[in-house]
């Protein structure tokens, strides 16, 4: 097992910045040897590496961040499942610790690279954190379907941009189990939240959301354009699913209510109605 000195030496072995302050980088084979040596050092070596990430990202710890990021990608090879678990477990423990938030953000970013379904509960806790929720949300969305439950759990307590984030991501995950909770935000005072609702319900393809989307499409300006898009997306999804009657309801609404300066949308609706 590698001792602490070895980790520092491994990190220091990365070639220095060139005369312009740019990363020249090691040859891939040399980098892989560094990664293998770190992994051979086990949890203690990984913890040591994580401990080298500093609060202020001003470049002083660039080698540690560089090695950690390379390692996160390296363990995503299909043959490295065990080592991936080792790295991810160590990162999760660190983000749950009292480490500074900037450090946690940098580590959550690596979970966006290498995190898995097992990582989801730990990330979900940060959806309630004003400073870290976007990082957590991105990592969760990257991990995919397994994350939906965490977003659902976060929705009732969320407000403002956090709420928009959570609803948007539930929609991107196509989470039909969240439909009812999402609909409750349809009249939110924040236009970003209202538009997130429209986008999410459209992405999920919920037939029962037609009236909400139609209502939203009767607003003005940016909200009207975005709600009209949500209407079209939902209509396309319904039509593709063989639900032609509800799809036609949406198209008819757009055909009848878009003004002359929205003729391009009327044309889309008219073509779909046939």
């Amino acid at each position, binding site marked *: 097992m590698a001792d602490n000195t070895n980790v520092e030496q491994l990190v220091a072995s990365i070639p220095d910045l060139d005369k312009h302050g*740019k*990363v*020249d980088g090691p040859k*891939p084979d040399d980098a892989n040897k560094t990664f293998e040596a770190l992994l051979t050092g086990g949890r203690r070596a990984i913890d040591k590496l994580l401990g080298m990430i500093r609060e202020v990202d001003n470049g002083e710890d660039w080698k540690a961040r560089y090695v950690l990021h390379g390692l996160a*990608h390296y363990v995503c090879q299909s043959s490295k499942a065990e080592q991936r678990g080792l790295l991810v477990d160590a990162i999760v423990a660190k983000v749950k610790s009292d480490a500074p938030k900037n450090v946690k953000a940098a580590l959550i970013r690596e979970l966006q690279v290498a995190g898995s379904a097992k990582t989801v509960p730990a990330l979900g806790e940060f959806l309630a954190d004003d400073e870290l929720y976007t990082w957590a949300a991105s990592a969760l969305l990257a991990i995919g379907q397994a994350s939906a439950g965490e977003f659902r759990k976060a929705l009732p307590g969320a407000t403002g941009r956090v709420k928009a984030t959570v609803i948007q991501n539930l929609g991107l995950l196509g989470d039909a189990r969240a439909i009812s909770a999402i609909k409750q935000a349809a009249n939110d005072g924040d236009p970003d939240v209202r538009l997130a609702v429209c986008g999410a319900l459209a992405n999920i393809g919920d037939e029962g959301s037609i009236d909400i989307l139609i209502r939203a499409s009767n607003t003005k300006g940016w909200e009207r354009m975005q709600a009209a898009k949500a209407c079209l997306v939902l209509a396309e999804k319904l039509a593709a699913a063989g639900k032609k009657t509800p799809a036609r309801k949406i198209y008819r609404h757009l055909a009848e209510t878009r003004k002359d300066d929205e003729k391009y949308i009327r044309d889309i609706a008219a073509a779909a109605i046939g």
Partner: protein
Amino acid sequence: MSSSKRKLNRRGFLKGAAASAGAVATFTIVPRHVLGGPGRVAPSDTFGGALIGCGGRGGGTFREMSKGLNVVKLADCDVKFKNRADNKKIYTDFRRVLERKDIDVIAIATPPHWHALIAIAAAEAGKDVLAEKPMTRTIAEGRAIVNAFDRYKRVYQVGTFGRFGISKGAGNILTHKIMASGLLKNTEACYVRRGGFKVKQWSGKATIAPTPVPPNLNWDMYVGPSPMKPFVPTRVGGTHRWYWDYDGGGLGDMGQHALDPINWLFARDHTSPVEIEAYAPPAHPELAGMWGWSKLKYADGFTLVLESGEWGEPSGMKSRPPKLDDLSEADRKKVNNMPNPAPLLTFGEAVKVRGQAGGHPEAAHRTACLMHLTNIAIRTGRKLHYDPVKEQFIGDAEANRLAYQPMRAPWHL
């Protein structure tokens, strides 16, 4: 348009209307949807235009958009106009620009992390778009642009024009036809593109400390869909190309210029490679960096090799053009009987006839994919297998995370 109709241009129309009314309060551009457009008689050839992203390439992009069109610039929009935005002529928020009904065409010259979202929103607002290269920052963004411009039937042209020249040469047309014929199987044809990617120039500096945000800059709007980071001066003003958050280094940026003519030449406008292998050091988490080469192999065997000429050893590959002799006599006859590809329409021509511009979304997207696929191979450090129809990596969910990157709400594709 007939000459009699051409005589009734908008300036004359407005002049007449003003004379009737007895006064002109302000000069107002009447939007084309009022006076003309697809399926309607257009008494005016004047287009209301806006520039979104006014630094660097902004002026050039707007001029490029205006070629062959009579465009009157009605709005400038940039996140650095925080101190002087009046929401009449000067804006910081592109959404307010897109709400205007008197604007028909949009030139986009923001950093690349905004290209897709603004282009898509412009299509949703009924505008035509000429957007600075690179088209996108991710594969997902490119597909979303293709879908949006298809849905709304708007015109899109990416800001690179090399394909317009290369598509005129007789030898190039023959190469295009051989490759487009689909008759080559397991071809050994190969094209090596060496240099021109500005790799070192647009790889990032690793030791720059955060500073306060300049008072004229709306930093939240600048960052937009990318992760919120402390302000660092090099994140704006051209050196944004260093950062994965906003661009893809020299390859992600210059690649569209270098590869777009090649994509036309070898008839790759509707497909992508199936196998990607790169030779590069591990990537920095924030900064684009050095790379040596990338081999991108297509399903028909054609291989495109990109060599930076700036790092490591060369690939050892040599160009080997496809030839008529590679085909059987019967197939040669088929190629010779193929019609030549239609001349490419400029943005202005496409807007006028409501056609597809030469650098249309699908073509621009497939070119951009070459940069993205290579950058993902560099960043993952793995040989990748790709499904060019589903546009997903095969058996590599983690590589797909880089193709379909999350965005910071409220921004999303």
